[in-house]
């Protein structure tokens, strides 16, 4: 049991990473990774939404009428997303970031990771493992987001978390700020990940 739980937590972060292995959640990883601050807030938001939605859906799993289960899951996820958005809007420090992330917070609901984990895991497992699975998938997603944002902010603006790191003489690379570069970077991360973990390579 303990080993299984450990697997539940570690698998989504490494071997079964939602972005680099399952290729889910690509859209938002292109959109919100221009700055580390936004990426971090997005990562935390997605982690909370996947974790809590999985928990709630797992609690309901025996009572949900099978014919309408997707709709019920969608309602639960939508509620979590709205809650996160409302809380971000209410915080003094997070208000500006929420405005900057604009539609992407609301679009967490369409993030395949959330519904995917509920369908694949939460509906067949107990609440605690489901919560951990949801959180771990969010962390796996967030990790990649933060790696991408680190390079994009460093090379695209010369800053990290808004603080200047590279000397003022550094001319920011405009390509890095545009979404295509995120895709290139993501490709490189997938490449590195597969080179490091031989199990992921197709024979």
């Amino acid at each position, binding site marked *: 049991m303990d080993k299984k739980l450990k697997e539940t937590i570690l698998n989504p972060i490494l071997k079964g990473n939602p972005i680099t292995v399952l290729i889910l959640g690509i859209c938002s990883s292109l959109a919100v990774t221009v700055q580390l601050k936004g990426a971090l807030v997005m990562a935390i938001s997605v982690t909370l939404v996947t974790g809590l939605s999985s928990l709630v859906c797992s609690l309901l799993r025996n009572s949900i009428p099978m*014919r309408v289960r997707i709709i019920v899951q969608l309602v639960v996820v939508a*509620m979590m997303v709205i809650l996160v958005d*409302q809380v971000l809007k*209410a915080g003094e420090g997070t*208000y500006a970031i929420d405005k900057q992330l604009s*539609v992407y917070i609301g679009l967490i609901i369409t993030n395949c990771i959330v519904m995917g984990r509920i369908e694949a895991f939460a509906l067949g497992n107990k609440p605690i493992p489901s919560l951990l699975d949801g959180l771990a998938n969010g962390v796996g997603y967030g990790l990649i987001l933060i790696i991408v944002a680190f390079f994009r902010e460093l090379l695209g603006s010369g800053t990290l978390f808004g603080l200047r790191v590279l000397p003022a003489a550094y001319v920011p690379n405009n390509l890095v700020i545009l979404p295509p570069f995120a895709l290139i970077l993501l490709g490189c991360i997938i490449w590195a990940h597969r080179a490091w973990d031989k199990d992921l390579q197709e024979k």
Partner: protein
Amino acid sequence: MNTNSNAYTVIYTTLVVVVVAAVLAFTAMKLKPSQSANAKAETLRQMMSAAGIKSTDELYATKNADVLQLYADNIEQAYTIGLDGEQNGTLSTELKNIELVDNLKPQNKAIKENTGVTLPVYVFKSGVAVMPIYGAGLWGPIWGYVAFQPDHYTIAGAYFDHESETPGLGAKIKDEAWFREKFIGKKVEWGAEPAFKLEKNVEATGAENAVDAITGATMTSKGLNEALNVWFKAYEKHFGLGAFFGMLEEHEITNEEEE
């Protein structure tokens, strides 16, 4: 129990929706005060950035409470005007009655339909008068504040914001300090058609009532141009008249000097 019967499904889904609605309504109610405090401070930051009270970066690094205090310290008076340019109401400068950005949308509609408008004017102690603008960008609404020097035709500063313009292109109206800085010192030509222009090659022609549009953001620039001109037109009788007398005075002074 049969969880697949019709009656069960209907009752179950109804219950889920009612519970979710209750949770959301409760949180929305609880968080409303702090959300509107944030929105209020945001409006003031944009307004004071345009008026040049402090730099945009400084204002965004300032806490909400200090932003309110800064506004209270600097505001002289605030009132509303109609399309005839006459004052038709006063706005309380008390902090609880700040006009939010949300109020600009119905005013924009009222301008276009020529129904009773109450357009806000904010006069700061430095003599700078601030007016809002509102219009449609490419993907959603855009709005902003334009501040005038006491002569009522030289622009003292501007700030623009948007809901969902393209990052890296249209979003530059907000993100890039150089864009709003270009407005400083430009002169609105009241009564002219159009009173102000966003176009290309302004630096080459040296036009006083024009600013370079943003390359690659044609639709956002067009939208901003339209928003500026619709609102300048609405404020024309108010600011235009004052500016006319101001110019007259200026000419008299120069004439005297010549003699």
